[in-house]
Every structure is written in structure tokens, then in C-alpha cells.
């Protein structure tokens, strides 16, 4: 249908220079990847050996975290290297294999911070190059032919998904949680680590007991620097409701003090003025002209160094101005002076109450959704990709390798997930969310290795694989572009449900005390904080728990529904 109308577009000549450019970039990328993966792996190895020898060198942070990713990148890069030989000879199959491999690479690199982002952007450039008409000529038509039945199946699946209410509800909840996590800075009224000590354990809906000091200007200068300590300083001041909603009279404070003596006894004269002007009107005027628009002024002179201006009680745009008029502007007073311009505002209402440190539950839940979803995403992605590669290779080649891999997974299956993760975190010795996710990655990969291996085994003997093999396709080509895409469905179901389980287990781990010691918002840790106050302040526990339950339930609803949809026995009726 669509592709028929598009085919004439592809009939332009293949550009061999573009295509070899793609090949070259890909080779360079493979080399960099080998280097990155190798360095990370060797670094981990070296660190490990140092540990054995009893040396205590602190490795750079990026080395410690990505041992598994390093290994994966090495494996994928080696496969890419092989397909790249085909790319150089313009074999269409090689192009589509490297297309899939590159997609894999992006997934792995995206879990690796800034470095990974840089590498992923190189992959994106390669993918764009692949899709340029000059290169597309060599492989696109065949690729579309290959994937047409697959695309059709996917369309049918989507149609079934739309008809299943529970799956739609689950997807809606997941989308909602993800957008809450992404929009956290806008939605949360407090920072995740904020503690308002006057607001300890307030019930839901309470206003705050404290008022917040906001700084408009803060100068804390020990050495004399005329650029920091200017003659005068001005800025536009837009008065909105947040300035006016204080429990006290809304006003702006100006304070000056001496940093050495810690007293107000500074020989200084600071004048603070507020004008009825916008900055654009203010700037071209002379000081004398400005005075006619003066709203209020206050001088901070010797021995009387804290003053305030009551704010106009309607919203509007003003300009504030500080003039530092010293009788003698010497280096001494300007070097040791603190000048502070500040206003008070109310803290926002605690919609879902506060915890025992005065942290706002509502905001902390929102910030925590970022942490928990990130843990779930990184654990599932890493476990999935490493497990899939290991399982596929072991299932495809069989023999001794397969036997070994299966015995190793047996051993991992001998531990319940939470207990093995506990032991790993304990051995690693660092209590942080990163450690938790590393432990869960190590715990989780065998599930996928088993699953993919089983699928590959059943797929390997089918006729179409036989056909591909007899037409001379390479092993990596058969594995990555024929077998793996056809084994993906149960893996997707498993991964979706695992998102829920990883969130549960990670929250459980941080609940029993493996999270970072202070501060960070995470659902399990919030419940851990609440458990000692469960009788007097149940809201500390109730809301974070509901967040976990709803999120995990959403993933399970989707996974369960998709399994029914993808099940060939129930599919077409």
C-alpha cells in the first residue's frame, strides 16, 4: 500500500561514496565502542584486582557503574564489526542487521549518562545516514519486504489492545506516571530534599507554619572587588501573588552587617529605593527624573542596619535599586560587608501532609517517581539486553556453551531475587540507589537469558531459518535479523511485568535500609520513614504506598493483557 507508492522515490541511483562513508563511520564507531567497552571492562577488572591485592585506589565513578554495559557493548561491537564487512560489499542483509544492532546499541548507551548520550548521538547520525536515499537504495526495499508481515501483525495487535479496557487503563496510568516524573519540577511545590522543621508531621491539607525567606540580592563579600560591590545595583521586580501572600505584612527587608565583628556596627550608608517603573523606562532616565516615580525609599545608616519597605498590595512591575553611598568608600567596609535584600513568603500548602522531618509528602512522591521509574527502566533495559544476547547466543550455538550458561542461570535461580540482591548490595558496601539497581541488574538477567534461549531453540529448527542458512546468510545475520525479532513477544510481556516487580523489589530493598542514608526521595524510603509513625501519622505511609501499588498494578495490567493478546491460541477468534 504505502510502500508501493514510495518505491519510485527509491529508484534514484545508490551513491557509493555516501555508502562507503556510512561504512567508514560505522567502523570508527565500532572502534570507539570497542575502546569504551574495553576500558570500562578492563577498568573494572583492574579495580577488582587491586581489591584482591589489598590496594585502595578509588576508581573514577563511571568505571564502577557500567561493567555489564561495557561487556554488552563489546559483544555488540564485535557483531557490528562482522556485519560491517558485508556493508562494505553492499550486501542488503548486512545493512538491516547493522540497523538492528545499532538500535540495540542506542538502548545500551542510553543507560550510561553523558558519555552514553554522546555515543548514542553518533549512532543516531549513522541511522540518519542509513536512511539517506543514497544509502537506502542498497537495502530499504528488501527490508520493507522483510518487515511487512511483521508490521501488519503489530497493527492487528494494536487494534486488539484498543479493545481491551484493562490494558488501556494500564497504559493510561503508565503514561500519567511517566509524565508526572518528567514534569516533576513544575508539579512539585517543594524540592525533594526540602525539610521545613516547623512543619513536622502535619496532616494532609495543612498550611505551613513557617515562612520562607527569599533572597532578591545577597552579597557576602570578604575581599574587595569593585565589580561585585558596585556603586549601585538595580533589578526589575515583578510583584505577584507570591510576594503578597505572607502571614505577616508583605515587605522587603534590607540588612547590612559586618562579617568580621558579626555586629551591625558598620560604617556604611545603603539606600534602598523602589520605583514605579519598568526596567525599560528606568534605564534611560537620569537619577533626578527617576525620583518623581519613587514608590518608597529607606536608608540603612550607621547603627541602624535593618530596615524594610512595605510592598504595594497590588501586583505590578517595579524596579528596586540599591545605592551604596559610603562617606569614605574604603576597601575595609566593602570587603567585610554583607548586604541582604529579602522578602518573606508563605510555604505552599502541604496537600498530602508532611513527614517527620517536615518534608512535603506530595512533592516527595513526585520527585520519587523519577527515581523509581529510572531504577526500573535501567534494570529492565540492562537485564533484558544482556540476558537476550547471552540467551540467544547460547541457544543458537548450543553445545558446551549452552550447558554452561544454563547451569549459571540455575545457580541464579536458586536465590530468591530480593535475598540475592540483598547479599550483593551488602558485599558492594555502598548504600545508594545506584547500588540497588546494579544488584537488581545482576539478579534479573537470567530470567531473560532463559526466556530468549527457549524461544531461540524452538525457532532455530524452523524452515525459514533453514532457507536463510542455505542462501548463505551469516550466523549473526540469522540470529539478529531473523530469530530475535520473532522471539520478541514473550520478552516484551516479561519486561512489562518486570517493570512492576523491579519497582516493588527496589522499594522493598530501600525500605529495609539499603537506600542512601539521608534525603533522597524514593517511595520505599518514604514508607520506611513513615513506619514508626504509622499510628499517629498514617498519611506518611499511605500515599507513597499507593503510588507504588498503582504504578506496579498498571505495569501488571498491561503485561497481563498483552500476554492474552499475543497468545496465538487466543489470538484470532
Amino acid at each position: 500500500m504505502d510502500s508501493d507508492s514510495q518505491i519510485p522515490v527509491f529508484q534514484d541511483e545508490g551513491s557509493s561514496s555516501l555508502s562507503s562513508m556510512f561504512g567508514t563511520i560505522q567502523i570508527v564507531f565500532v572502534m570507539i565502542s570497542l575502546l569504551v567497552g574495553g576500558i570500562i571492562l578492563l577498568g573494572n577488572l583492574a579495580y577488582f584486582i587491586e581489591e584482591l591485592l589489598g590496594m585502595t585506589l578509588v576508581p573514577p565513578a563511571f568505571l564502577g557503574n557500567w561493567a555489564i554495559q561495557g561487556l554488552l557493548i563489546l559483544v555488540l561491537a564485535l557483531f557490528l564489526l562482522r556485519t560491517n564487512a558485508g556493508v562494505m560489499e553492499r550486501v542488503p542483509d548486512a545493512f538491516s542487521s547493522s540497523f538492528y544492532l545499532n538500535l540495540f546499541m542506542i538502548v545500551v548507551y542510553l543507560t550510561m549518562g553523558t558519555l552514553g548520550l554522546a555515543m548514542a548521538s553518533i549512532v543516531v547520525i549513522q541511522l540518519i545516514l542509513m536512511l539517506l536515499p543514497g544509502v537506502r537504495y542498497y537495502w530499504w526495499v528488501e527490508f520493507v519486504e522483510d518487515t511487512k508481515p511483521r508490521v501488519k501483525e503489530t497493527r492487528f495487535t494494536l487494534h486488539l489492545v484498543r479493545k481491551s479496557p484493562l490494558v488501556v487503563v494500564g497504559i493510561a496510568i503508565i503514561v500519567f506516571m511517566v509524565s508526572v516524573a518528567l514534569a516533576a519540577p513544575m508539579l512539585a511545590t517543594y524540592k525533594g530534599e526540602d525539610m521545613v522543621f516547623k512543619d513536622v508531621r502535619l496532616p494532609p491539607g495543612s498550611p505551613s507554619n513557617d515562612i520562607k525567606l527569599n533572597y532578591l540580592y545577597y552579597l557576602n563579600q570578604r575581599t574587595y572587588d569593585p565589580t561585585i560591590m558596585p556603586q549601585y545595583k538595580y533589578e526589575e521586580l515583578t510583584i505577584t501573588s507570591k510576594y503578597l501572600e505572607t502571614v505577616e505584612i508583605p515587605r522587603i527587608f534590607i540588612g547590612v552587617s559586618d562579617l568580621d565583628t558579626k555586629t551591625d556596627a558598620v560604617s556604611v550608608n545603603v539606600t534602598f529605593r523602589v520605583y514605579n517603573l519598568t526596567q525599560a523606562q528606568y534605564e534611560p532616565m537620569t537619577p533626578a527624573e527617576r525620583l518623581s516615580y519613587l514608590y518608597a525609599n529607606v536608608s540603612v545608616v550607621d547603627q541602624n542596619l535593618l530596615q524594610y519597605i512595605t510592598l504595594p498590595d497590588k501586583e505590578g512591575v517595579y524596579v528596586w535599586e540599591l545605592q551604596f553611598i559610603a562617606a569614605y568608600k574604603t576597601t575595609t567596609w566593602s570587603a567585610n560587608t554583607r548586604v541582604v535584600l529579602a522578602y518573606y513568603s508563605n510555604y505552599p500548602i502541604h496537600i498530602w501532609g508532611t513527614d517527620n522531618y517536615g518534608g512535603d509528602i506530595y512533592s516527595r512522591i513526585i520527585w520519587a517517581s523519577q527515581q523509581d521509574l529510572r531504577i526500573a527502566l535501567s534494570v529492565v533495559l540492562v537485564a533484558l539486553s544482556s540476558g537476550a544476547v547471552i540467551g540467544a547466543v547460547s541457544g543458537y550455538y548450543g553445545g558446551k556453551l549452552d550447558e554452561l550458561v544454563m547451569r549459571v542461570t540455575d545457580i541464579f535461580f536458586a536465590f530468591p531475587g530480593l535475598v540475592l540482591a540483598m547479599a550483593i548490595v551488602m558485599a558492594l558496601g555502598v548504600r545508594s540507589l545506584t547500588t540497588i539497581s546494579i544488584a537488581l541488574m545482576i539478579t534479573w538477567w537470567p530470567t531473560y537469558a532463559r526466556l530468549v534461549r527457549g524461544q531461540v531453540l524452538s525457532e532455530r529448527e524452523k524452515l525459514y531459518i533453514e532457507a536463510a542458512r542455505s542462501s548463505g546468510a551469516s550466523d549473526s545475520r540469522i540470529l539478529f535479523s531473523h530469530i530475535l525479532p520473532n522471539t520478541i513477544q514473550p520478552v516484551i510481556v516479561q519486561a512489562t511485568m518486570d517493570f512492576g516487580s523491579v519497582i516493588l523489589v527496589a522499594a522493598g530493598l530501600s525500605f529495609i535500609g539499603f537506600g542512601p542514608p539521608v534525603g533522597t526521595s524514593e517511595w520505599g524510603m518514604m514508607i520506611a520513614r513513615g513506619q514508626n509513625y504509622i499510628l499517629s501519622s498514617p498519611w506518611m505511609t499511605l500515599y507513597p504506598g499507593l503510588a507504588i501499588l498503582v504504578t506496579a498494578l498498571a505495569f501488571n495490567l498491561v503485561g497481563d493483557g498483552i500476554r492474552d493478546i499475543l497468545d496465538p491460541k487466543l489470538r484470532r477468534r
Partner: protein
Amino acid sequence: MRLRDFIIRRIILAIPVVFGVLTITWFLSYIVGDPLAMYITERTPDAAIPGIIHARGLDQPLVVQYFLYLNSLFHGDWGVSTTTGADQPVLTVLAAKFPATIELSIFAMIFAIALGIPLGIISATKKDKAADHITRIFALSGVSMPIFWFGLMLKYLLFFQFSQWGLPHLPGGDRYNYRAYTWHPTTGFLLVDSLVFDHNPGLFIDAIFHLIMPGFCLGYITLAIITRMMRSSMLEVIKEDYITLAKSKGLTERVVIYKHALRNALIPTVTVIGLAFGGLITGAVLTETIFNWPGLGRWATNSILNSDIAAINGFTLLVAFIFVTANFIVDMVYGVLDPRIRFG
């Protein structure tokens, strides 16, 4: 294959797993962590440390250390735990804490089976009706339930709020009421001891009441898993030809379901039950912490907070062995129930 050969084959397959488990715990505590931490406590005098290092062979090459580790494990020397207050050998503590956890797990399991199998049958026989949807959502929320939170909420409602409202309420924690009853531990299983050795029915009933809430909390996930498995295997079985035959013979629905379908549908459920038993021990870590249950789980949590490596190592080993044994028994039962497995 005869049943005996089948069992022997399974035992042979289990041996590398057991060694793998030992190796992993060795790897974690000796290579990633600090091996010395297993054998010293804050109360160990500094002067004694070189002696311990030498006696434990921690100055030997790694290979030798590995075999020394295996050796000490097989001789019942699992390191020293400090979590209980005094320095105690890990194995002693494990033995002392074990019955409480097993009692709780068995109670949770009984509860999960007693509710899960009927729910699964109802859900399957009333497929796509209201009862089915309610059961499915109930089961799915069980799988997605953070049980540490569920326990806290149960405690808040059934213990605290009920007592606020003047209703009869369940106890909020512990194994029995320490003020009202005395217990002389013989086997460590409170229910057995109170009836058989102490002849104290009051204590027995009190203990049952204390078991209800943690048991329900711990069993909920297992209940959900059993319900789902029962439902799907029942649905599979109902479609089989022999069920159609039984129905066409004119047997009542009740006889068909309970006499013909149930027995075959139970086979996969038995597997899940066996595997879930290992999961229960894990769940006990979280549940016991909340209900102040003096078992393995709470001890493990406390040892985490105390950075007590020997205790964690011992706990991991024990749980892994329980898990392997449970899998093994499941395999056996499966082989007995379904001869096709043996010959397959």
C-alpha cells in the same frame, strides 16, 4: 525412566547448583566484600586479629581460601553474628530463629492455598463474568502489592483503628502476648509447643490470633499467584476432550469440575505452590520487620542495619538451600503426579 532413576538424575543436577550457590556467597563476601568481617566483631580485641587471619587462612592464596571456606561451612562454622546483642555463631542463631519463620510461612501458605484454589476455580468456571473480573483484579493487585506497605496498612486498620472504634481488634505484632502467657520453647514452633508440651490452650489460641495478620499479609502475594495459575490451568483443562466427554455422559457440572478437571488442573498449581514457598521466605524479610516477628527475616533486616556480613551470608545460604530443596521436592511431586514428565 523409572522413578528411582528420575530422582537420582535430579539429585545429580542439583549438585552443581549447590556448589554454585556456595561459590557465589564466597565470591560476594570474600572478593567483593571483606572476608575478615565474617569472623570479627567490635568486641574482638585488636591483638587477636592477626591470629584470626592466620587461623582462617586469609593470608593464603585465593584457591586455598575457597576450599577453607567450603571446609568451614561443612563443619558448621558459618561465622560470627553480632546482631542478637552477644557474639553468637551464625548457625546457632539460624537454628533459633528458623521455627518462627517456618511457622509463619506455613500458616501463610495454608491460607493462600485454602483461598487461592477455590477463587481460581470460581474465576475459571465463571469466565468473563463479574466474579471473574473481580477475582482477576484482586489477583493482579496482589502481585503488584508492596507487602511492607500492605502490612503497615493492615496494622493501622485492624489493630489501631479497630481499637479506637471500640471493635475487637487483632494484635499488632509479636508471636504471643508476653504479659499474659509464658512459653517454654521446646521445638521452637509455638503452636506445637503450647499444645503438646506446655498443655496451654490459651497460649495456642493467642498464638493463632497473632498469626492472622502477618499470615494474611505474607500470604497475599502467594494467594494471588495461586489464583492466577489455578484459573489459567483450569481454563486449559476445561477445553480438553475428556471434559467434553464427561459432560456429554450427563454428569453434573459439579462432578465434572471437582472430579475430572480439578485433579489435572492441580498439577501446574503444585509447581507454583512449591516455588512460592521460597518466595514466602523472602517475603518474610519484609513482613517480619513490620510485625516485630522474632524470625529469620527480622534478624536479617537488623543485621543489614548493623552491617553484619556473616549473618547476611548465612541467611542467603540458608534461603538458597530452602529454595533448591523446594524446587527439588516440586520436581519429585511433579514426577509422581504426572508420569509424562518422567518419560519426557
